[in-house]
């Protein structure tokens, strides 16, 4: 990929960010490529050293806060006409409600994910506590001379504790997965604002 191609794709990928910021980012990479070429590299080598343009775009989008993307998206490209403002106000019961509903759906997705994680950890805690309790109860029964039930209690306790140890790693992996999932969702929401901008 040559310099022009890289910069064009970068500019397209960043559409949706404020204009000044796109210009500044692009000129930053422009300078970076030119300086490498001056250092003796070819344009292609210089671009290759900087890395895949998709990765660059992804990192920039991930670093840009969502409110900034939304603000840029809703900022009118021109002065609104009077009738448009009237329509906006009259239509507010509809678009406001729809907007709130969309936000509520997204919020509920987050809640569902994290409620699931909370449920798994609750099971994990229950296993650990009941395991310890059973072992304790088994020891008490043994001391009281009730050998069979005492041993049974200890055995059950050890099984529960074993499950708890297994479960702990499962819960940890699930929590990590959920963090990654919520990050992916956030990135996806951001990309919605970028993609729509490009189609216009």
């Amino acid at each position, binding site marked *: 990929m040559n310099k022009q191609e890289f910069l064009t794709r970068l500019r397209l990928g960043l559409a949706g960010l404020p204009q000044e910021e796109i210009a500044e980012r692009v000129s*930053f990479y422009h*300078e*970076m490529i*030119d*300086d490498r070429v001056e*250092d003796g590299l070819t344009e292609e080598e210089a671009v290759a050293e900087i*890395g895949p343009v998709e990765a*660059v775009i992804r*990192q920039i989008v991930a*670093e840009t806060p969502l409110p900034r993307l939304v603000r840029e998206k809703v900022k009118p490209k021109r002065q609104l006409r009077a009738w448009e403002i009237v329509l906006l106000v009259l239509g507010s019961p509809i678009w406001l409600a729809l907007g709130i509903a969309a936000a509520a759906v997204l919020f509920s997705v987050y809640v569902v994910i994290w409620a699931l994680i909370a449920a798994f950890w609750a099971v994990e805690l229950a296993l650990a506590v009941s395991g310890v309790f059973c072992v304790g109860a088994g020891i008490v029964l043994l001391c009281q001379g009730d050998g069979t039930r005492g041993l049974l209690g200890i055995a059950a306790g050890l099984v529960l504790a074993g499950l708890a140890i297994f479960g702990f790693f499962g819960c940890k992996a699930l929590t990590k997965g959920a963090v990654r999932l919520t990050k992916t969702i956030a990135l996806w929401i951001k990309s919605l604002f970028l993609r729509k901008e490009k189609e216009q």
Partner: protein
Amino acid sequence: MDIQLKRGLLDVCVLAAIKNEDSYGYQIIKDMKPYVELSESTLYTILKRLELAQMLTVRSVEHGGRLRKYYRITQAGLRRIEEFREEWQEIVLIYQFVTKEDRNE
């Protein structure tokens, strides 16, 4: 490395790279390369942050028929490096404590 810790360290690294003389993006990356790999987008974010914090100033200079941005450290930037030197003493103490615990085990 812990992201927060690394972020703070890289900020000071970039300040150090422009401490003695004004420098530009690619030069900063080249100067830091033997010590720490820095990607362009990371450098951009750091430079922005330092500029906002008024630890450096930016100016465009004509170079070979094009413009190149040069970064100059400010008093606040120099102070940040000094602060880092002092903080480092604390970090060295913490490091000694951590490795001492290791030996006792």
